[in-house]
């Protein structure tokens, strides 16, 4: 399997036969896009649920205040 590797050394691999800029910039672009595209929705989900929870807690507090006529926050 390893005899089919097209590069004889690591520096040969990074050089990409003189096309280092073209090949590596495309792969870098892909990796950056890939990572961002998966990370952003995951972060966004946490944010949505956090905001949601805060809204529910606030609603709960104001309901308790209204019912008891008490201004002290629980």
């Amino acid at each position, binding site marked *: 399997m390893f005899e089919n590797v097209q590069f004889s050394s690591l520096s040969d691999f990074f050089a990409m036969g003189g096309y280092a800029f*073209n090949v590596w910039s495309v792969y870098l*672009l892909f990796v950056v896009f890939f990572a961002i*595209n998966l990370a952003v929705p995951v972060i966004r*989900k946490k944010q949505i649920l956090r905001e*949601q*929870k805060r809204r529910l807690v606030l609603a709960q507090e104001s309901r308790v205040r209204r019912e008891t006529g008490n201004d002290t926050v629980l």
Partner: protein
Amino acid sequence: MWLWFSKLGSPKWFYELSGKWLPWLIAVMSLLLIIGIVWALLFVPPDYQQGNTIRIMYIHVPFASISLAFFPLMAVAGTITLVWRMKLADMVAKTAAPLGAWFTALALISGSIWGSDIWGTWWIWDGRLTSMLLQFFLLIGVISLRSALEDTEAASKACAVLSIVGCINVFVIKFSVDWWNTLHQPAGSFSLADDAPNPPEVWVPLVVMILAIYCFFAVSLILATRNEILVRERRAQWVEDLACNS
């Protein structure tokens, strides 16, 4: 059949089902990506004309091919929204547009970097490139149309119509290489013969990468749609429970 259809339209049902599928889809995507990228970077023989720039193909072609799926997808989702007013279909249509713009942009940029060496130019007003750029602007148009209209129902209807009309451009992109034979090469052929212009050691890893990027597309779309569900269904009991337990 109709029970299944209305169930699929339920955001809660989709949220739960997609939650079960996601880990598997991510596992398959990761496996295909690792195999595909290692194969493309290390084992594919350099092209006799293009040398090592052939390795750009394994990113460019999958992104370009999946980019063509966005308008048909949005058109189908839009039709379902228009005819059956299914909430979920509109959520998919909404999340697909920005994702499509990113995928199209990546196809254009990677193609440009590839072309800068082998064609000697970053850009040319070739049929394929121009129609692909038009798709990018159409997607930006769909996104701005949705954000410009305040009435969400009117916005989703307008976007649905624009998505259906935008499908015409997909045919133009597809056949552009046959109609205007300028610079972009036509689609290659897949053959198992050893003396074929595209031998298996070149196209098999391409198929692996195409499948990997299709999985990536599915994962991205599902993740974004799930967030859209959480936002739009925030008054529903199950979303409130989910938020409380998070």
